[in-house]
């Protein structure tokens, strides 16, 4: 806490939040403003390289992230990251460069600057659950999400591998459930919350994504969930944008709205649909929210 009673963070939205996941960016900014958490976007940040860069060129991936970390270091506060993939790459870079001197020397040569690893990188979940704290989050609630059954979907990169993101336990995390329960929602126990959705194969191998994502939707539905909550724009793209197509392929109906965590938490603290970008969701959440008396 700064003396002004305002929490300060630098903010790395990542490419998706400026393109297909605009509602995640919007709801994050609105929610954090309301919670008196100041986000300052890192000026002229660039792509972290995501999965494709480390897939074929680890040195490039580490260098892009190291440069972004250097840019972030010029802005006050720990670095707040919304996207699970950016979060994973930035944390992996800190981890690898901290342990491997050869790679560190190569990266320093590539970015022509010393690597600094002392800045903290935090996912939004971490900021809400740990820095702000669940008690204070609960105190900000105006409209508890009572009766809403949420399936919290972690996917891959928020928690894995061990010792890198350090967000929560790798095999039995609870941070998403704790956050959303603290604003009044119910959570369901389900089997596929840590399974992979196929991620960026959505472009090169959509058939794979359809198969994996179907299993996730099926599991959430079977557990009695009303909706799914995610903290990653790629998971969101696969679960939300492809949901109708998947229903067609498997001749079934899920109708599960897929919310970003900031949208659901935002609802509970009284933000309106226009400030949460609910109209950008492909699976329309309005009937569900009206039924539960949340809109």
């Amino acid at each position, binding site marked *: 806490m700064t003396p002004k009673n305002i929490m300060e963070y630098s903010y790395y939205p990542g490419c998706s939040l400026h393109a297909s996941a605009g509602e995640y960016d919007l709801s994050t900014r609105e929610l954090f403003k309301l919670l008196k958490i100041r986000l300052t976007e890192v*000026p002229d940040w*660039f792509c972290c390289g995501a999965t494709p860069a480390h897939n074929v*060129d680890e040195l490039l991936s580490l260098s*892009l992230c190291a440069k972004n970390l250097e840019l972030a270091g010029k802005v006050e506060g720990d670095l707040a990251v919304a996207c699970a993939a950016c979060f994973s790459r930035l944390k992996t870079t800190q981890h690898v460069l901290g342990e491997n001197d050869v790679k560190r020397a190569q990266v320093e040569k590539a970015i022509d600057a010393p690597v600094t690893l002392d800045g903290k990188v935090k996912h939004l979940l971490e900021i809400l659950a740990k820095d702000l704290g669940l008690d204070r989050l609960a105190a900000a609630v105006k409209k508890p999400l009572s009766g809403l059954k949420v399936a919290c979907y972690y996917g891959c990169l928020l928690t894995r591998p*061990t010792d890198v993101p350090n967000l929560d336990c790798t095999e039995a995390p609870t941070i998403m459930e704790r956050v959303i329960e603290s604003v009044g929602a119910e959570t369901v126990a389900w089997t596929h919350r840590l399974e992979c959705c196929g991620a960026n194969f959505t*472009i090169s*191998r959509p058939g794979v994504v359809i198969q994996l994502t179907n299993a996730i939707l099926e599991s959430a539905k079977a557990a009695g969930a009303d909706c799914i909550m995610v903290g990653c724009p790629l998971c969101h793209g696969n679960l939300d944008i492809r949901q109708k197509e998947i229903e067609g392929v498997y001749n079934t109906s899920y109708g599960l709205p897929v919310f970003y965590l900031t949208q659901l938490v935002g609802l509970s603290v009284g933000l309106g649909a226009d400030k949460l970008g609910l109209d950008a969701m492909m699976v329309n959440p309005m009937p569900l929210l009206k039924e539960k008396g949340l809109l």
Partner: protein
Amino acid sequence: MKKKKMVISQETMDVDFVRKVEALSGTSVRRCFQCGKCSAGCPMATFMEHPPNRVVRLLQLGQWQRILEGRSIWYCASCETCTTRCPNKVDLTSIMDALRKLSWDGHGPSKESYVQLANKLFLQNIRTYGRQYEMRLAAVFNVKSGQFLKDLMLGPKLLAKGKLKMFHSKNKNMSEIEKIFARIEEMRAKGEAL
């Protein structure tokens, strides 16, 4: 197709290649004792001809050609489940990265041109624009891979939801990004990095 019989001998075992994989991935394939936990948890194993544990076994035997000839490495989704669960701290995700890099560098033909094409376009976008515009990436991928109709029906819906952004804001760090790409190329040309 008749399977080639595997012959293990000094002539067929390429240890130098395996050392490169180990240097790139920062992990030792010798630590693996074939418990199979990686393959048991792998969401993509069903699509692979060599599941993750067998990829490591083939590396232990110096038989990398068999891996690069197949599609296994291009079906790995980098979900990190294998690395997380390995009892011997074999970082399989990084081994897959190293194998893809060496394959990318021309060490062998690959059956998975689609995944390679998507990766290539992704990296080109970073070098040209500094940031990624997924829908542009998808559109160019469709054109280059000749799948003009793939996901065509999604286009208008995404446009209506404001998710299609084809225009690029100018990034002030573009020259810095170009320098990073160029320096890495230079380091590799001089043999200072793999």
